[in-house]
């Protein structure tokens, strides 16, 4: 299928949506809003997976879609909300890149990924190429978010959206074997991360979630 066909357009639309939400995550300051944006991204990803399942006729991807929706669209956001409530952070507004700056950085990263991917994937189908480009952008934006946020939860969300990018890439490549297994495994990793931050934050009872407060505790000091 090529440009101008329905399948292509829908897949493109969904991928673009995921990317757009990455931008939202990037400049969204309020923690609650960040979590919601992430939930939306997860849902969109699930839709994308479902559509790919339909388009490629790969029933396995439906499973991926369901998992993605359940975990990323519902459970993890709820868990994160719970943490936020437990540590009453929902008011907390934290420094992120300003809109303009985050936009420019993001656009630059998207440009870079397109510059890299499109010539790199001439062999592959147009849809796959688009998808990989979008996925790479999402990955890079996720990393950018991780390094611009001090708040542990925002960092986790950055990692999660980064992983969304991976799933996006995985489902985009038609006929990828093990895609379900891989996405599941990645999901497990993410859940583990959330559980980790959960256990870790609660146990430590840091008055702040600022990861900077960890630095003092490095072994053998400074």
């Amino acid at each position: 299928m090529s440009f101008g066909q329905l399948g292509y357009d829908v897949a493109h639309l969904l991928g673009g949506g995921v990317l757009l939400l990455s931008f939202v995550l990037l400049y969204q300051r309020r923690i609650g809003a960040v979590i919601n944006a992430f939930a939306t991204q997860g849902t969109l990803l699930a839709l994308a997976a479902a559509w790919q399942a339909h388009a490629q006729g790969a029933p396995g991807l439906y499973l991926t879609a369901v998992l993605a929706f359940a975990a990323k669209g519902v459970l993890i956001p709820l868990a994160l909300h719970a943490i936020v409530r437990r540590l009453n952070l929902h008011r907390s507004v934290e420094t992120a890149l300003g809109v303009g700056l985050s936009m420019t950085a993001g656009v630059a990263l998207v440009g870079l990924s397109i510059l890299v991917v499109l010539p790199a994937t001439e062999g592959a189908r147009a849809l796959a190429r688009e998808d990989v480009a979008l996925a790479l952008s999402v990955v890079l934006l996720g990393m950018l978010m991780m390094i611009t946020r001090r708040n542990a939860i925002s960092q986790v969300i950055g990692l999660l959206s980064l992983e969304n990018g991976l799933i996006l890439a995985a489902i985009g490549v038609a006929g990828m074997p093990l895609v379900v297994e891989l996405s599941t495994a990645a999901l497990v990793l993410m859940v583990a991360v959330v559980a980790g931050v959960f256990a870790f934050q609660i146990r430590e009872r840091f008055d702040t979630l600022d990861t900077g407060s960890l630095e003092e505790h490095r072994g053998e000091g400074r």
Partner: protein
Amino acid sequence: MRFPEWLRGVSSLRDPRLRHAVLTLLLLATGGLLVLAAAAPALARHAKGAPVVLGGCAAASVLIAAGAVGGLLGGPDALDLPFGPPWGPARVAIDALSAWFLLILGLAGTAASIFALGSLHGPEAPRRLLPYPLFLAGMAVTLLAADGFTLLLGFEAMSLASWVLVAHEHEEEEANRRAARIYLGFAGFGGLSLMLAFGVLAGGAGDVAFAALREAPPDGWRAALVLALVLAGAGSKAGLAPLHVWLPLAHPAAPSHVSALMSGAMTKVAIYVLARFAFDLMGSAQPLWLGAPLVALGAASAVIGALRANLEEDIKTLLACSTIENVGLISIGLGLALAFRGADLPALAALAAGAALLHALNHAVFKTLLFLAAGEVLHGALSRRIDRLGGLIHRMPVTAWAALAGVAAAASLPPLSGFASEWLLLQALLASWRVGDLAFQMGAAAATALAALAAALAAAAMVRFWGLVFLGRPRTPRAAGAEEGGRLVQAALILPAALTVLFGLLPGVMLDLAEPALRLMTRAAAPRAGFVAIGAAEGGARYWPLLVALLLAAAVGAVVWAVRRRAPAGVARGPIWDCGFIAAPHHLPFGDPSSQPTASGFGQPLRRMLGTSLLAAREGVTMPPPGATAPAVLQSGFHDPALVALEGPVPRWRDAAAAQAERLRDLSIRQCLGLTFGAVVLMLALLAWLEAR
């Protein structure tokens, strides 16, 4: 007819089966040493354990010496061991060059082992017992190796074993730990440098077997790089300036018999590696300048070492410095041989190489002797500091006279061994003008002056050593109560002393024995000079040690006879005229030490003449107020510039770099992620750029 030639003429020595036997004998001796090392921890528990181990070491050393002579008289032979590195067998071989140095190792090892055996008191700690055979075995392996890996295996094993021995008193003194630390650091550095040297030499083929290396001799910058790396690796091990700083620290820290081996044998093993590279592996078609760095560094080491020997106040450190001087002289000889060979003067090349080899042998013997004597002094008078010794000739006559033989040889006095080899070396230096190149001639003239200066400085140092330790009056009660060692110890001292005299009287025989090694190095033989003489060149100057000795004896005899005819026999004894010093107080029954020359006082003239400029030496005299009876005190000290550089700027640069690196480590998690992110973006940008092109 040269002496060994009729021996060589005996057909049975040419028999290949005999050559195999020689190599097998040497390998068995080495293996035996390894077995001893393995068994040492268990044996150390029993009272008879230590004597078994050390006796075994002595026996193995004798075997090695015997095998070496066999190797010199017989021919070369090679063998592949059934084990080795993961990529091939370990190759061993014996040829004239390695045999010559094996002879050195055997002689030094025998004396040292007997001494250790004799100075045993009760059970020996495993950490002192186990490394010793390993040390000997490591040196033997290095000399027997026929490929780069085996050579370095032995080289580093030798370093590691001796490091344990250098650190044997680690609990007592920080100084020993520092010595051991610096020593092992230099050892590792040397090993890595030699690895690179083998790599550059092997080139693309990557085969480090000697046979393969000889096939493709390097040229141009590769040859220069190989030489530089070998000088860094083997040179640092031998104690060539400026990488000699570890030597005066490490050699004294070890037990005396180990110090003797380190100075007598280990430095020679390093010299062997140097010679093996420069004369054998790098091929014979090397340019003249290849010898220049050896001559320059050798001259520098000779002067620095000899001068420091005049300033040190610890007898073992003093001897270690004199080792640096002698290594420098040997390296001058090797460098000249290289230059002569490059200038196509084979006879002179053989002369210089002969001087180097002969001096290596002589130095090994007399330095072993001197270190063993120092050990005996330490054992008898419980101190290594000159200012706590004195007058020992009365209490330890055997040690004193044996040491005197070594001292005279080290001071290069005729007719002892040191003079013979240094005479050859001077002849080689005096002939160096025959190399056409003017710059080299000037350099060689300077080297001649420096070599002579070093020799004379060594004489001064040796007079200072022997005179202050064995002559004069005891400076401490312990020195006054010193006692001679047991029979074995005396034997261990007399053996090398006898060899020193013997090699001094028959240098020609030893030179003839070394002839195959010289052929291997320079494709020529040392100039013939008849049976009892050594000669500079055909029809050139000659040195007839036996006749000179006879002449000297006759002259002394004549003088004695003449004096006896006119003078009354016997002497009268009286108190010393002590230059008006008041009589010593009662708490000093052995006289007032402060009315005797001290170590630093004796070194004063040379410290002022040369030390201030070369070693940043300083001194200050604190005079007592007029009328006080307190002695004036002379404080003095000096720095070895190389050591200052090693412990000054180098650590500063390192710490500066480390400080920068720490900044990287202090990053927060986010910044670490930033590093990863940066790496990804950089990589992607690079790819985009690559694809754009």
